[in-house]
């Protein structure tokens, strides 16, 4: 896997335009998830946010993770959420907030501001490196070489989740 180019930041017009448009789409869609008054519309905006994040992964030259994000988040988890909304027909679908709205807002704002301040203040040890050229091979090798234990445990987690979900929802 070779390193192509060597820049710490993106200077070219294409990457800058791509980043800003995708960031606006992602954050805008996330804000609409909060704001719309219809749960299904909120889920659709969430899917848009997922796709925006996948685009941001591509600007970071993480091709495998971007495609995995679309495959799993926009393709599977979104379908799961939509099924859950549809299989609960008598639940309220107006995307209302609880009584903890204001404390939640204050806490979220505090957390956001804190993280943002840390990001801006810290002097990140940015290496002069270029983008990856192919991540799929490296990820595959890492999964079977260095991280084989989490890999196996993740498969057990998936099995447990599958069996658990089926057992929970069974009508006995």
């Amino acid at each position: 896997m070779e390193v192509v180019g060597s820049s710490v930041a993106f200077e070219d017009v294409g990457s800058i335009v791509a980043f800003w448009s995708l960031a606006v789409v992602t954050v805008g869609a996330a804000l609409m998830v909060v704001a719309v008054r219809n749960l299904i519309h909120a889920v659709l905006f969430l899917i848009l946010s997922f796709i925006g994040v996948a685009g941001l992964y591509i600007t970071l030259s993480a091709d495998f993770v971007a495609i995995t994000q679309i495959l799993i988040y926009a393709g599977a988890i979104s379908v799961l959420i939509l099924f859950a909304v549809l299989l609960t027909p008598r639940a309220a679908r107006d995307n209302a907030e609880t009584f903890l709205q204001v404390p939640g807002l204050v806490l979220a704002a505090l957390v956001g501001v804190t993280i943002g301040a840390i990001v801006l203040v810290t002097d990140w040890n940015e290496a002069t490196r270029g983008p990856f050229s192919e991540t799929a091979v490296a990820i595959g090798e890492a999964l079977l070489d260095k991280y084989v234990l989490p890999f196996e445990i993740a498969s057990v987690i998936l099995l447990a989740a599958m069996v658990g979900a089926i057992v929970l929802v069974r009508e006995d």
Partner: protein
Amino acid sequence: MSVDLSHYLLVGAILFSIGLYVALAKRNAVGILMGIELMFNAVNLTLIAFSRFVSPPTDVTGHVFVVFVITVAAAEAALALALAMVVYRNRETIDIDKINLMRW
């Protein structure tokens, strides 16, 4: 104006705080799950940004971590929604203000 690591981290921070607000303030259990998924996405974005800008050139640890986070997020979403369905079956609602049997 160049795009730097801090830009990606700020986008991640904003997404995380929006997700936190949704997880804390929504009434519908599915809405809370949506907030949690937003938080996962923010964390993944931060991980990939670090992997791209900070880690050594042949290190894909960030990517592997993100693959695991996505996997566990999928499993957890399935279970959370299964729980929501069971609660709906028993209580006809998934409004967390009304599921309050274990409160004082």
